[in-house]
């Protein structure tokens, strides 16, 4: 091949190569091919409708599981309940007592999702609310999914006190943070709960610096303890102590505070005085114990789920609580 022919052939080859490469680019342009859009990972991992549907399913299944008996019932409860909700349901079964009204799992109105913990990691958490039409009480429900292949289960269902309210949390789509320690709070939720438990002890309550005792549960317990002491007169003594069980679950409020769910176990003890032949115990305890009188002592265990609002400054407030008689032992 001569020089000019070789050059022409080379030019043609180059032109063909450029045409093929340009053709690929043109094809991409024609169909509008672009890079895969980036996934947004900052907000809530579920949309509000999906979270509401999940809440409805979980509450319904929890109610159904609570009504079942025997080993199948226990399996069903463990499949859909965890933490405080499971403790409350198991307590109702072992004590053969009904749930005090308003029942948080009674067929609710359609739930409203208040918050979803943000991010793509697990465990995932949903906070929702329903309204108990009979009592006009608002109920708070906390749900969690521990792993990608685990469905959501109920952590807690708690009626709010009359007149109590949950401070602003922010748009659901933005998601909320979980709170693990006391950063930005008047004190760590776990410390505040310990303080609250100690402050509810009877007859020697500790001083509470970071939590208010002017809530429905505190007032009720103080009144009840005083009434029982008065009723027992000198025949027996009444004491009460509270213990925090497990770690609380807390989500950040938009004002910087936290909404905290926790499980407490209350132990009421009636101890007969040395001179007393027999002491008559209150009717609910007698029903649980199987007899109305004791000679030495009786210990009654009650599980309680509480919800607190912990602010950045000032004092924490308990805004809702549920309690369930668990067991009684006496002699």
């Amino acid at each position, binding site marked *: 091949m001569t020089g000019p022919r070789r050059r022409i*052939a080379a030019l043609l080859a180059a032109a063909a190569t450029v045409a093929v490469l340009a053709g690929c680019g043109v094809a991409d342009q*024609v169909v509008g091919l*672009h890079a895969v859009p980036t996934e947004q990972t900052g907000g809530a991992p579920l949309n509000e409708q999906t979270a509401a549907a999940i809440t409805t399913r979980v509450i319904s299944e929890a109610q159904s599981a609570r009504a079942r008996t025997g080993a199948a019932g226990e399996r069903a409860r463990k499949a859909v309940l965890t933490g405080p909700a499971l403790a409350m349901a198991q307590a109702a079964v072992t004590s053969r007592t009904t749930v005090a009204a308003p029942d948080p799992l009674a067929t609710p109105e359609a739930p409203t999702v208040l918050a979803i913990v943000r991010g793509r990691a697990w465990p995932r958490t949903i906070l929702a609310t329903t309204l108990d039409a009979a009592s006009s009480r608002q109920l708070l429900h906390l749900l969690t999914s521990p792993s*990608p292949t685990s469905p959501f289960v109920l952590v807690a269902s708690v009626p709010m006190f009359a007149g109590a309210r949950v401070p602003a949390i922010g748009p659901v789509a933005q998601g909320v943070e979980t709170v693990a320690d006391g950063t930005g709070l008047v004190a760590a939720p776990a410390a505040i709960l310990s303080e609250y438990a100690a402050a509810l002890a009877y007859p020697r309550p500790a001083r509470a610096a970071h939590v208010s005792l002017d809530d429905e549960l505190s007032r009720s317990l103080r009144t009840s303890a005083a009434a029982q002491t008065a009723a027992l007169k000198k025949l027996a003594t009444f004491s009460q102590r509270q213990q925090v069980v497990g770690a609380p679950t807390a989500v950040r409020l938009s004002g910087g505070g936290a909404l905290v769910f926790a499980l407490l176990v209350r132990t009421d003890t009636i101890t007969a005085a040395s001179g007393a032949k027999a002491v008559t115990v209150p009717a609910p305890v007698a029903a649980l114990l199987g007899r109305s009188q004791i000679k030495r002592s009786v210990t009654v265990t009650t599980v309680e789920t509480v919800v607190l609002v912990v602010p950045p400054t000032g004092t924490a407030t308990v805004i809702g609580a549920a309690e369930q008689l668990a067991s009684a032992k006496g002699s």
Partner: protein
Amino acid sequence: MAIAKQLLSLALAVLGVVVLGVGVWFSTHLGSSGAATFRWSPSDTRPVLLEPSLLNRVDKPLTVTVRPAQGDSVWVGLAAPSDVDAAIGRSSAARLTRVAVRDWAIRAERTGTGEPAAIAGAEIWRSRSTSPGAVTIPVDQRAAPETIVVHGERAPLRSVTVTWRDQTWFVESVLLGFAGLLLAVASLGALVAGRRSGRLSAS
């Protein structure tokens, strides 16, 4: 110089024929509706993931059609890609990642080992359903990126088909073929005319 012109005409004629062939090939496959359809058939029951690199690289709605084995049902879930990856983990799955236009087929990668993950119980899905018979899933691009997961309830799926539809693609492919035809005819004409004028000047 005359030889150079003839060579150039010949090259352009060949290019015209190639472009004509490409245009005819595209217009035949797309049809008058401009439907670009790509198909894949699984060989086992592992979950099939249609990934964002397949679904969300073109700003056009598409449809995914899943055909189960005779008498079987199809489970379909749609979720955020990272959620699906977390749920599938290292378990076995078939990932449909892109299309191969030359074969009008979908490229698949088999990943993971062992039993498929229990994804049906996971609560990561923006939507999920189980339907008897073939299922058509419309996908718009508003919630992109998304991953679709499908699997047969009892047996391997018969096929997974993805279709993009744009009538302008058919028009463009016809125009491409026409342009190739014009180029080929003009170049061949120039080539013939060149050879004639060469012979005349030689005689």
